[in-house]
């Protein structure tokens, strides 16, 4: 692993982010976890509170974090969703979703890079979604936010390697066994088919360590990504049948 033993994880208090923070801490990193909610007293990492939907708070956070760097690992993982027919969800929920999922990680990434808070040889991971390989009817704005983030990661990969010696990866995990997924899945969806967050985090960190540009954790996600690339139209139609047509409620 790299020389700078400091790590940063957003959305660290629960789910996949929690798994990243715990695994990096177990690997000997001093981890700063960003979240709206406190992680609980047993968390093996530092917690900084921030509502990533608030641009002013994100700007303050960049300043605070610059003093805590440089970071050998940065995992920009925080994300929220909004599921339901596109026109049924209130516009405020969309503005908030795009601020948290797309704007905040991009502003954090660019701000920390400009502040010299990326350790040379370090790893920077953006958590997008497996939906990047297909359309996501029933979560159109969520899909858009994650597509934007994935392409931002792809865009900065070459310049960041050159300017800072940092390897940028984008991770596209499929359905996870987290509270987030359970809240947004259609009624009766089988939680056992989803990957436990610990396993997803392990696979993503291993992929980023190897310097991979794109990480689809698990065989299921990899095959889905491949099929979607070959036949995006039919896969989006299937997604519509599997998810959109079964939506029984809007959640945002």
């Amino acid at each position, binding site marked *: 692993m790299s020389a700078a033993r400091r790590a940063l994880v957003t959305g660290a208090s629960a789910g996949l982010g929690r798994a990243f923070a715990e695994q990096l801490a177990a690997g000997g990193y001093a981890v700063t976890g960003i979240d709206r909610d406190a992680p609980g007293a047993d968390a093996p990492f530092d917690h900084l509170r921030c509502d990533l939907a608030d641009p002013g708070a994100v700007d303050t956070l960049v300043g605070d974090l610059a003093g805590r760097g440089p970071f050998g690992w940065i995992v920009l993982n925080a994300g929220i969703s909004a599921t339901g027919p596109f026109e049924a969800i209130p516009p405020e929920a969309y503005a908030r979703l*795009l601020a948290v999922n797309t704007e905040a990680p991009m502003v954090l990434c660019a701000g920390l890079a400009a502040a010299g808070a990326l350790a040379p040889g370090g790893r920077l991971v953006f958590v997008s979604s497996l939906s990047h390989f297909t359309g996501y009817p029933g979560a159109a704005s969520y899909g858009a936010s994650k597509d*934007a983030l994935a*392409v931002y990661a792809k865009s900065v990969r070459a310049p960041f390697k050159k300017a800072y010696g940092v390897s940028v990866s984008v991770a596209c995990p499929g359905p996870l066994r987290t509270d987030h997924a359970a809240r947004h899945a259609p009624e009766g969806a089988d939680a056992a088919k989803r990957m436990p967050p610990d396993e997803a985090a392990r696979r993503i960190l291993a992929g980023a360590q190897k310097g991979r540009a794109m990480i689809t954790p698990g065989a299921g996600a990899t095959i889905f990504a491949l099929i979607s690339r070959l036949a995006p139209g039919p896969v989006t139609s299937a997604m519509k049948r599997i998810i959109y047509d079964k939506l029984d409620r809007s959640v945002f």
Partner: protein
Amino acid sequence: MAEARRRIVVTGGTSGIGLELVRRLADRHDILVAGRRADTDALPVLPEGVRYVHAPLTDPEAATQAIAEAMLKAGWVKLDNLVLNAGTGFAVEGGIESAAQIRETLAVNLTASVLLARALFPWLEKAGGTLTLVGSVAHTGQGLFPAYAASKAGLHGLARALRAEWSGRVAVQIVHPGPTRTEMHAKAGHDPGRLRDIFIPADRMAAMLEGAIAARRSPVTLSFGRYWTGRAAWSGKL
């Protein structure tokens, strides 16, 4: 295949590709242009009869409201075409945009498009209309303007999902132009140098865009492949 008179909203219709599209359509259709300029700077460049609303997309909520109000004021209860063409970006070194540049790019290109699609859906549905999102061939990634590329990828994803969700009600398409000879690069702080000479002229791009809008297919790439095979000359009409 010229059809009946249509009601069309074009964002960013005050220069470049958007203005050329408006020039092509103004004789045959009712057009409302939305832009960031004050009326006094916008109206002189627009063809006679075209309506204009000052709606800077840097504030997506306020702009959405202004556009909806302008449609009501014009007495429009249906909308045949919504062309979300306005776009902005900043060319940067080393892949680092400032927070302000990232926020402006995302607000204008992505958030405003999401909110406008959401707000104008009922108008489009009444007409069985078409939502056209103007993307870019940069939507797969581009180190010179990362946030711009990201915003266009977001539009691509939005179009894929909405096209499925609204099928049979409102057609949704994403159209990705290739390099086009407009002032956009200069506004972005980028000089393409002599390459600019081979960029596609804005009026030719607008001709291909009109054809793509009429055909309602998605996704569509409008770049050198189509241009060099003469498609600008025999693209369909709206």
